[in-house]
């Protein structure tokens, strides 16, 4: 059902219809965004450049939590000062990332590296959630510590590892190593290539040739 929804988004949503009521190719809003070239480039460029703000700033907060950076300064002073920029960067990345996904939703949905990236993003979000509501609950006790407790350092190390994994997966999405055209076995199952084929066959009658 999800595959069908993303196929509708990619090929039919907003598309011009011919006399028989079928969607004319490359006229859906997704196709127009992908074909806009300059707008797509601006979105993609903004997504990548904002990485410097988002990942760069979260790295330095995590380094303080690890006790590597500014160890003589309270964690709260460092985190509260830098994190608003991290959040700002994240919002821009989320916005541009969503727009980039909208440009090619069906293919991204059936891309195993995109799925891996999403898993890492969700894991990083869970790590933030746990840190915020569990680990940080007694921040007053270790706020001034040069080397915060092990659970804090573990959360910071996990954060760095997960965001590096997100960046690596994001970069690898540019390569078609595991596209359904070439995938087999576990990878083909992981990106649901059979469902992709079935979806394409199901929507074909609704598309103009």
């Amino acid at each position, binding site marked *: 059902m999800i595959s069908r929804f993303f196929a509708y988004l990619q090929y039919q949503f907003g598309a011009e219809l011919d006399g028989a009521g079928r969607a004319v190719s490359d006229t859906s809003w997704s196709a127009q965004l992908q074909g806009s070239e300059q707008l797509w480039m601006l979105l993609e*460029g903004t997504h990548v450049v904002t990485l410097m703000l988002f990942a760069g700033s979260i790295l330095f907060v995590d380094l303080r939590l690890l006790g590597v950076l500014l160890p003589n300064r309270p964690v709260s002073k460092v985190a509260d000062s830098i994190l608003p920029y991290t959040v700002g960067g994240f919002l821009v990345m989320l916005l541009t990332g969503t727009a980039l996904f909208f440009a090619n939703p069906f293919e991204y949905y059936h891309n195993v590296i995109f799925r891996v990236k999403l898993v890492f993003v969700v894991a990083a979000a869970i790590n933030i959630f746990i840190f915020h509501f569990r680990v940080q609950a007694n921040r007053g006790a270790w706020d001034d510590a040069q080397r915060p407790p092990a659970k804090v350092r573990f959360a910071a190390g996990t954060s760095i590892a997960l965001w590096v994994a997100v960046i690596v997966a994001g970069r690898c999405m540019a390569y078609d190593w595991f596209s359904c055209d070439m995938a087999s076995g576990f990878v083909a199952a992981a990106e649901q290539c059979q469902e992709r084929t079935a979806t394409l066959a199901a929507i074909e009658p609704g598309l103009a040739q």
Partner: protein
Amino acid sequence: MTINFANLLPTLQPALESVARIPIVHYLNETIWIFAAIETGHLLLLTILGGAVLILNLRVLNLVLTDVPVEEVERTTRSWYRFGAAGAIVTGVIMGITTARTLLPNGAFFIKMVALIAAIILSHVVARQVRGSRALESRSGKAAILAGFAIWLAAMFLFATTARVNPGSILIALAGAALLSVATQRRHRPAIIAASALALSGWYVSLDALVGQSHGIGIALTSTGLVAAASFPTYSMDGRDTDKSILGKEALQRLTAFVSTLAWITVAAAGRWIGFS
């Protein structure tokens, strides 16, 4: 308009192509996963570099870590800056040698190299000044700032006027406007917006007259103007947490940090547009 290394230094291409034919270099280029690994490493190192530059420059602009002396912030980010810059340059050179055939005629690559020179000069000046070497007061320091500003403006001009690359300059303009809006006190914003609009108009008219109309150039020049407009009012920028006006040396230091930030963003954006063009 497109300026690139293939046109400027025609002897460079055959030399680099002969390097690209060396078996190990050829192997690197042909083996996609190795190239992808180097490319990913380049991106990760750029992130470290970007983080270090941003933290120091935002501190100089009085926007982050205001309780921490700026000297301490510089000292603590220095090794990360050097690691990120050295690593990004090494991985960049490896990628550059293996793909010389396509890089040298690429306008975005030329812009990236020009902006990189400006970014390194300006970051060096900011760091030296923070360390208390009076870089901004010495004749050589002032010359370095002027050179850095001029080289970055040249990079921006090329960014805005190079076909298929020019949308990237909008990104720098937006970053400049965002940084400026964060950095200024609310009570000064109307004056800054007016000054920005005036500067924007001046730049747009002068550059439009200079270069003339061509496809997409209006948008590109508008974005260049926005960047210039965003740069000028920083003299009156005095941070959010203080009422005092910043004049002279401190204003120049903040302006240098501001332009340094935009110069590094220009490097990153031009790098992304290498793939697009």
